[in-house]
């Protein structure tokens, strides 16, 4: 069970949301938040479902992105001072340096490099997308995305915490005309005879409705088990409602775009394992004339947070300021960040 918990923490499934050890205490956990490697880069998803106009049912996208639009509304954890310098070396190559000075967790320097095509429909479809990240403590994240054919994509993820490998997984995804099927093999370990197999399936049932499911099979030396989760998503031009329900818990989210400037998200998570539920409300306010984006959220755990992002034109820099208050524990977390480039 420990194995599946650790793996699912990086998978983003229903189990993951409540099984991440830092999640209970979010955003006040002392561990640095792991990068969301379960989420594909944004450019991977086809244009939003409601924009398909040729009469056929659109492809529903990947299983991991079901709750993405709601999650993007919420502010990200921010703590201490972070400086990110992004540099584009060519149309394929991007490099970024991150320096994080923190009061609660150890400070680090991170080097991130991306080799990927900048546009979705380029001529060279066979070029893989490679993303690598190295920490000052030696932790590595490596991510490779391959288009095997027009409909089949393969993805490999390796993650290590200093010298120990934490995640190694291989995923294959088939995108049909109106369905998506994916199979993931996570942390296969021949010596320990353990493996986690995940199968995803999403089918567009009507122009707004997508139904699907996820089957997780985990096997260790002493135990094995399977968990089935059903998922459904209904989307309209202005709002999206998603529900994941299974034996491990439930996750419901509602995203609403009120107007050009305001987006609102409501999320409900319940876990049978930790016997806890959480409700969160978040909103995002964009003021393009002021080059400003503000995200705020309030939680049933009595956590209130807000993050302000402001582009400092004419400099190619963005200033990020945020604070999170946990009223129950009476704790405050303040963060400042500068993104250059």
């Amino acid at each position, binding site marked *: 069970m420990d194995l599946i918990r650790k793996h699912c923490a990086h998978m983003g499934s229903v189990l993951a949301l409540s099984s991440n050890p830092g999640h209970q205490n979010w955003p006040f956990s002392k561990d640095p938040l792991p990068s969301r490697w379960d989420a594909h880069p944004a450019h991977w998803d086809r244009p939003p479902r409601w924009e398909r106009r040729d009469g056929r049912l659109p492809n529903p996208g990947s299983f991991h992105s079901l709750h993405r639009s709601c999650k993007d509304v919420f502010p990200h954890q921010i703590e201490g001072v972070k400086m990110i310098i992004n540099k584009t070396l060519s149309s394929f190559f991007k490099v970024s340096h991150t320096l994080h*000075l923190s009061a609660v967790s150890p*400070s680090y320097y991170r080097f991130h490099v991306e080799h990927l095509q900048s546009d979705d429909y380029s001529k060279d479809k066979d070029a893989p997308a490679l993303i690598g990240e190295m920490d000052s403590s030696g932790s590595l994240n490596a991510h490779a995305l391959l288009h095997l054919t027009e409909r089949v994509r393969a993805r490999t993820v390796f993650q290590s915490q200093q010298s120990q490998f934490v995640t190694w997984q291989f995923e294959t995804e088939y995108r049909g005309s109106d369905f998506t099927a994916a199979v993931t093999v996570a942390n296969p370990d021949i010596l320990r005879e353990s493996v986690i197999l995940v199968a995803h399936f999403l089918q567009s049932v009507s122009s707004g409705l997508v139904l699907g499911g996820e089957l997780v099979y985990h096997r260790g030396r002493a135990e094995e088990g399977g968990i089935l989760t059903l998922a459904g998503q209904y989307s309209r031009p202005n709002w999206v409602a998603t529900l994941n329900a299974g034996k491990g818990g439930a996750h419901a989210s509602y995203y609403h775009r009120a107007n050009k400037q305001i987006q609102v998200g409501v999320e409900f998570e319940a876990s049978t394992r930790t016997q806890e539920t959480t409700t969160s409300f978040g909103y995002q306010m964009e003021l393009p004339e002021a080059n400003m984006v503000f995200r705020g959220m309030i939680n049933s755990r009595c956590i209130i947070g807000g993050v302000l992002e402001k582009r400092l034109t004419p400099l190619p820099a963005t200033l990020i300021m945020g604070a999170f208050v946990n009223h129950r524990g009476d704790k405050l977390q303040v963060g400042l960040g500068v993104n250059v480039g």
Partner: protein
Amino acid sequence: MGSVLAASSPSPPPPPSAAGSASPGVTMPPGFGMPPVPPAAPPTGSGAGKEQRAENLLPNPGAFDECHRKCKEVFPMQMEGVRLVVNKGLSNHFQVNHSLLLSTTGDSSYRFGATFVGSKQTGPAEFFPVMVGDMDNSGSLNSQIIHQISSRIRSKVAFQTQQQKFVNWQGDAEFRGEDFTAMVTFGNPDVLAGSGIIITHYLQSITPSLALGGELVYHRRPGEEGSVLSLVGRYTASDFIATLTLGSAGAHASYYHKANEQLQVGVEFEASSRMQDTSASFGYQLDVPKANLQFKGSVDSNWVVGATLEKKLLPLPLSLVLCAFLNHQKNKFQCGFGITIG
């Protein structure tokens, strides 16, 4: 308001000093000290001889507490958490400020402060009496009353409480002569317990640039009494000020240099015989008025590096302050930001 001295800006509370402790002088934090008094104009006696005029050109050296002030103002002030300050001027005489501090390490607090300025005008921008007070959400009170009793004598009374207990009560009188300043302060006088502190300051202009003086602190508690003497020397030139304080309690030397309109630099050295340690700090202040920006940075011999950035967000009457301090020796990091409205 624009017509009130520095006391109207929200400032950190004066450090509480227990009654009777042998501190070499009650230090006034910036903002609570006396306003700078313009040097006394030389008397325009008709037919004054050349020698007499040269003698009369010695300026008043200013207050004793201001000696190291210019250098200290260059250094950034450490701040953590989130601070919101709202200043509101209710009339020409009355100003009110609210400050809300959400702290990551200590307790969050709300503070309400009020400033009253009277109508007796003594200088171009000085009005008396000045009454400043602020109250904490836990009931701690800081208050000051400053009044110009005569053209040369100014007096101040200050009270400070920690919740309901009085920790600081003092009164002082300052006399500004032609080329000297003398001040007497009575700190925490307690007739019943027979304890108190008496501080006398004296500062004399020797030449137009050089000022020498001294401070004598006499403290008394039932069972013990003692005194501390320190000497002060200050040399002022057109673009730098060098100050030295020497006494049995330690030494404090500071050097302030104004490089140009935008850059000011300060170096400070402190040695304390009581704590048996010394520290040296280097600080600089960079003003960019075109960008409404002020940046202060400092490096310390205690391996503390810190910086503060202050920016006025025109056209709104908002001011944003970002601050970060890093103690390399203890590997501790602190950051904070604040917004001042009005």
